[in-house]
């Protein structure tokens, strides 16, 4: 629980001087003003940090604790009299469980398919919108953004129906052209899920990248044009490198969300027998915690998932930083 402690001290630091103005002697008015400022700062920050401790730090600490301690009778939760330190037993159980490893592999496959596709499509559309050749640009942006206002579970419902033979006009049309696709079959199920996520988030990412493009200094682009670069060359060679921080941000958020993949497969699992209740790590955690009541296993699996997320995010940051320095060195 060391995380909790460090956070509460971090929180109490601005909170400490909050009581000061009442007791402080008035040696220097400047110092008093400084303390009053810190007091106000503490008051403005307190509600958020109370929440941070209560619904973030304590739960993360609890998850860590649960993953190392096990009750002899799982299902009773916090029975302190029967709780024993089990070391890495829960981790071993999770990491040797083929269904958990299968879930990790599923998400890895999903990420490999979805993240590059998302980043490339979003970047391409943002550059096209920025090229000035698009008619009704504001309307195009709004239409692309529209699915973001559709809740994830409803996006999954819409696409589930569009994947279901007998309900779906898409399957119907394809059948008339003598094409049969089983969208929820073994070969298509991961792309089908990626498509739902793509549909939901593409417009959001396009708008973030488009907004970042607006911040590219016009002189840079004009200089490229004067040097004889065509629109495609300008987009690829000039605008794209300048967009790198925004692209990295989009990739990071897409990665973090992808690691948590839950809603779409959970809904599809109602109709697709192929998607079992432990299809992704998040579904595995839910299943372990609330179906099997094995809190230690669920906690260990969630710590593993968290560690993977942090490691991958850190890897992405390091990799892009190194690419940046390499580029700078080359100049």
């Amino acid at each position, binding site marked *: 629980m060391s995380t909790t402690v460090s956070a509460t001290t971090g929180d109490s630091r601005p909170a400490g001087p909050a009581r000061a103005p009442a007791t402080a002697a008035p040696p220097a008015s400047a110092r008093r003003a400084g303390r009053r400022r*810190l007091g*106000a700062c503490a008051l403005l920050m307190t509600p*958020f940090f109370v929440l941070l401790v209560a619904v973030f730090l304590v*739960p993360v600490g609890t998850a860590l604790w649960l993953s190392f301690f096990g009750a002899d009778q799982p299902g009773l*939760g916090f029975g302190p009299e029967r709780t024993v330190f089990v070391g890495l037993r829960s981790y071993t159980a999770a990491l040797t469980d083929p269904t958990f490893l299968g879930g990790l592999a599923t998400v890895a496959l999903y990420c490999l398919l979805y993240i590059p596709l998302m980043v490339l499509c979003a970047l391409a559309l943002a550059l096209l919108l920025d090229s000035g050749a698009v008619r009704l640009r504001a309307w195009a942006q709004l239409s692309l953004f529209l699915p973001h206002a559709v*809740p994830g579970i409803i996006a999954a419902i*819409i696409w589930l129906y569009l994947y279901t033979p007998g309900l779906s006009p898409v399957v119907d049309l394809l059948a008339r052209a003598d094409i049969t696709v089983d969208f929820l079959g073994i070969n298509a199920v991961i792309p089908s899920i990626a498509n739902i996520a793509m549909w939901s988030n593409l417009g959001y990412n396009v708008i973030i990248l488009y907004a970042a493009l607006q911040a590219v200094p016009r002189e840079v682009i004009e200089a490229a044009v004067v040097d004889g670069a065509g629109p495609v060359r300008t987009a690829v060679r000039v605008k794209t490198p300048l967009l790198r921080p925004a692209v990295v941000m989009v990739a990071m958020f897409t990665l973090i969300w992808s690691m948590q993949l*839950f809603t779409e497969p959970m809904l599809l699992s109602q109709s697709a027998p192929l998607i079992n209740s432990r299809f992704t790590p998040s579904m595995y955690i839910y299943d372990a915690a609330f179906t099997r009541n094995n809190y230690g296993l669920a906690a260990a699996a969630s710590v593993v998932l968290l560690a993977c997320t942090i490691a991958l995010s850190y890897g992405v940051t390091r990799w892009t930083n190194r690419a940046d320095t390499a580029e700078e060195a080359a100049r």
Partner: protein
Amino acid sequence: MSATTPALRPRALGRTAVNTVVGISVLYTLLPVLWLVLAAAKNRDALFSSDLLSAGDFSLAANIGDLFAMDGGLYGRWYLNSLLYAVVGAAIGALISTACGYAFDKYRFRHKEKLFGLVLAAVMVPQTVLALPLYLMASGVGMVNTFWAVFVPVLFNPFGVYLGRIFSRGYVPDEVLEAARVDGAGELASYFRVALRMLGPGVVTVFLFQLTAIWNNFFLPMVMLSDQQLYPVSLGLFAWNSSATVSPEYYPVVVTGSLLAVVPLILAFMLLQRFWRSGLTAGAVK
């Protein structure tokens, strides 16, 4: 923008290609929504014969009537729950996050950046990691299966703090605060009377994104709630959809219910467009 210079205009052929690609993307995003509208407007037989484009059989009103009559009017209850969780939660959450972001921007104290790093780290942690401990904590204080079990955790919005800091830097000049101090206004008074007003668009942006997140929230209610009367729309539709695999009479209400559940967010995004656009710009430009 850059297109205003004639030299930058692509040739006609390129323009057609560009418009085709963007047009296809727009169709990709719009057609499923259109399908939802048509499916909700048609009667059951048309839905099952995937025959939605034929004219006639317009029965949206009847479908909505069926929806609100299903299971003793449960849907109306879910809708109100969702509005309560999302609107009240996002309003309080946005105020809390923006205040904290403002304090991060305008005040200096030791280890400030480390603390801010902790806030950013919180963005990264999956909901699934927090759900089980939150459930155990809630059950420890007897809050499982209550309104508060869902309402309190969704107030937490670290990304809102990040946005709040950026907005505060962009919209609230330090000179204004100095002027307020010279006038003898207290620190909190100048926040609530002066800075908060300037932060208005930022608060609206944070509110809107949090509204979306809470309205979409599915995992936490699923973990916390077992009483159907407390469900938000997302969880309710999930429950009905799983009933539909057994009893198909639920399909039409799931479709109509989905359409109605999309309406508030689309309205909010359309009405508040100018705010969230500036919000996304601020977040991306940084």
